[in-house]
């Protein structure tokens, strides 16, 4: 259906606009007195790390939602957000390494923040692997929801690691008791726009990855003969088939 195409493509347009805005502002912001031009890497590294927290936080909430309601729609949200969270965590680690090499002189150090972030990355890779251990959607959702809740313990551990332990990684720049450490207003605006842009990317990817899980579940249900939905309509108009909305 022609009218359906724009609604399916808006996430891709949103990602393009967000990226363009973020890059433009990051390039227009001034160099840092200490870091020089390398400060611009912060406009991608910091948002990636924040989005990892957000994504795993959404996985936590959706996992709790599933455990309380047993509605598989919550499971799809948890799975989608975890997958995107793994991507953003990996991206934050790699971007941090690219910043660390010219700044610290090493790609990696076993600092508390870096080590805990790496552990968080592998725990959520394990979450995605756990989901592939069975084709039973109910068993998969049950197991994943438990790990989705337990795994979230790491979010505050990673975030406050720079406060609780003496680390090479610098402490928070924005959310700190004595106010933001970034004094330059243009730098603050650039970082804010970058965080907003990455959030738009996250929401857009969530829409598409959730669509992917919805279609996959509908296909699996159809293959199992649970119901026989009409192609396309099965994922856009669940009201036509009482079973498909909660597959």
């Amino acid at each position: 259906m022609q009218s359906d195409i724009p609604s399916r493509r808006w996430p891709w347009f949103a990602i393009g606009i967000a990226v363009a805005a973020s890059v433009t502002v990051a390039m227009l912001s001034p160099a840092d007195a200490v870091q020089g031009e390398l400060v611009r890497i912060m406009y991608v590294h910091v948002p990636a790390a924040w989005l990892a927290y957000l994504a795993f936080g959404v996985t936590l909430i959706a996992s709790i939602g599933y455990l309380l309601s047993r509605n598989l729609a919550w499971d799809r949200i948890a799975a989608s957000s975890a997958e995107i969270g793994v991507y953003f965590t990996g991206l934050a680690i790699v971007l941090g390494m690219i910043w660390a090499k010219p700044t610290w002189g090493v790609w990696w150090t076993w600092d508390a923040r870096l080590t805990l972030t790496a552990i968080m990355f592998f725990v959520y890779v394990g979450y995605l692997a756990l989901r592939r251990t069975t084709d039973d959607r109910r068993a998969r959702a049950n197991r994943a929801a438990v790990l989705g809740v337990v795994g979230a313990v790491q979010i505050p551990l990673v975030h406050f690691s720079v406060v609780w332990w003496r680390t090479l990684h610098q402490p928070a720049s924005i959310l700190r008791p004595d106010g933001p450490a970034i004094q330059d207003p243009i730098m603050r605006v650039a970082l804010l726009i970058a965080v907003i842009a990455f959030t738009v990317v996250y929401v857009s990817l969530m829409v598409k990855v959730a669509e992917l899980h919805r279609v996959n579940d509908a296909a699996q249900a159809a293959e199992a003969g649970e119901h026989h939905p009409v192609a396309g309509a099965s994922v856009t108009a669940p009201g036509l088939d009482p079973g498909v909305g909660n597959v």
Partner: protein
Amino acid sequence: MSEWGWVALAYAVAYGSFAVFSVSVAARIRAARDRLDAAVEDPR
């Protein structure tokens, strides 16, 4: 490598990976829809 070189590398990784991830999701959706269509046309 110069500071701008490191910045360029970071942005290429960040936004290049956005593109790769987005394209992979779009391709997986297309494959899932094909799988759904096949299942509906030929239900077991």
